[in-house]
């Protein structure tokens, strides 16, 4: 099989999609390692899957519903919800501004 090889542009594109910030060392290492992983998983293309239905739920459950009711026993208080936040402001999560003035 043809060897897959990812370019540095590919790595940049994927890391942007994944919202990961990679160092230059990581980028060059991942280009090699991800290419090897792609070679490994690409062999699946050779399996005949004509007329085979996909499986997403392995035990065959379908349409699991519940009543649209509020379950207060599993609700978090505002204090609990904010308990692990790195920064809060007047009871809100605080984030960096994403718009300019």
């Amino acid at each position, binding site marked *: 099989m043809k060897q897959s090889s990812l370019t540095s542009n590919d790595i940049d594109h994927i890391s942007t999609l994944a919202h*990961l910030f990679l160092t230059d060392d990581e980028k060059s290492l991942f280009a090699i390692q991800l290419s090897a992983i792609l070679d490994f998983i690409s062999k699946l293309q050779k399996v005949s899957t004509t007329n*085979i239905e996909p499986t997403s739920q392995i035990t065959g*459950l379908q349409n699991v519903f519940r009543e649209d009711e509020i379950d207060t026993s*599993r609700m978090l208080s505002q204090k609990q919800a904010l*308990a*692990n936040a790195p920064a809060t402001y007047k009871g809100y999560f605080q984030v960096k501004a994403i718009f300019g003035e």
Partner: protein
Amino acid sequence: MTIDIKSLTIIQALEGMRNKKFTAVDLVQGCLANINKYNDDYHVLLTVVDEAVLLTKAKEIDKTDYSLPLSGIPIVLKDLFSTDGLRTTAGSKVLENYTPVYDATVVTKLKAAGAIIIGKANQDAWGHGSSGENTDYKPTKNPFDPSRVPGGSSSGSAVAVSLGMALAGTGTDTGSSVRLPAAFCNLVGLKPTYGRVSRYGIIAMASSFDTIGHITKTVSDNALMLEITAGKDPYDATTSHCPVAKYTQLLSSTPKSITVGIPKEYMIEGIDKKIQKSFEETLSTLTKLGFQMKEVSLPHTNDAMACYYILVPSEVSSNLARYDGVRYGNSRQSFGSEAKRRIMTGTYALSAGYYDAFYQTATKVRSLVKQDFENAFRNVDVIVAPSSPSLPFKIGEKADDPVKMYLSDVFMCPVNIAGVPSLNVPAGFVVGLPVGIQFIGPQWSEEKLFAIGAVYEHTNKIRPVSQSDQ
């Protein structure tokens, strides 16, 4: 009094307390002594509950008649299990300072059953790994040879049981993560049917694969743990209505005329000759026990690994997208290498132009792998296979070659793809290192696996860890 926790089972501990031979306080102190003795060298637990809190809890239980199913039993939890008020890291620096505000359903059930949570166990970060080396903290060592890996990803849960820091360790199994550390540490580990145990409150790796299983010294201890934790949970829509059997009571009903399947595709070239020989001895033991042997075929075994390493990273990239460092946890800069590798692989497989070729094809191959098992179980009751093609390997041996590391799980991942249960049982020692075998059954056949595992287990004596005592 001093108790040898390393060789004590849950069943024996319950009997001991109920017969007033020792107390829950004795058990907790025994576990704490082993934690003090081993944790700094073996890197087993990431968080240990405060001694005063543990002793208060144990004293409360000592005032009772120990009538709960796990009264006073010390347990460690893999650090993916959310624990109200107790730090939960997932083995990752992203969650280094994260303290959940609620318990996972399994934790709620264990507490209600009288268990004492001793601490949180080290693991490959987010469950990504087969060796324990992918932790963002210090890698856990194998108690039988500290230069070797204990198996992962539930590495600390297994070693904690082996070194007597607890009587059971909880784990998760997405591709091998309960069974492999059990195999590498001479313990019993169950990967149950998908949906048998609630995933609510357990940090997700790959949601259509993740199962919750436990690591114990014996099959009967494992049956007890599943009996307590299994069942429908309204908070996890993928749990099943299928009734939970009284696994512990069904253990003594010796299975008769059982046919055991041996998959011909598992006799691969890469298997260690010593493992091969040990497996042949296991087969002759099973024959002597009266089991019928029959060759079966799982034709898509080779494709299963490629299928796994498309679907699982895809789900991983989606599940780890929630870690934004805004509501809890550190920023995405804090992900370790393996998490980044899997996020990148999954993102690529799901990205525009590649989705059909990778993800869609893999979901179809998943159907073929499932059919392989269904076809095999038309002719046999269970399948038996080595748990690993190799002995516990040296720390660092496979660290630079992700594909080689992925293939450590070749006998295990197909089980997760098909959603069927599998029980690892110790199968003796080769050159001083533990070897495991797994019994694989159809979906919802856990009681059969436990019964067969118990019959086989009696041919092997429990052998607690010895190396670390030297």
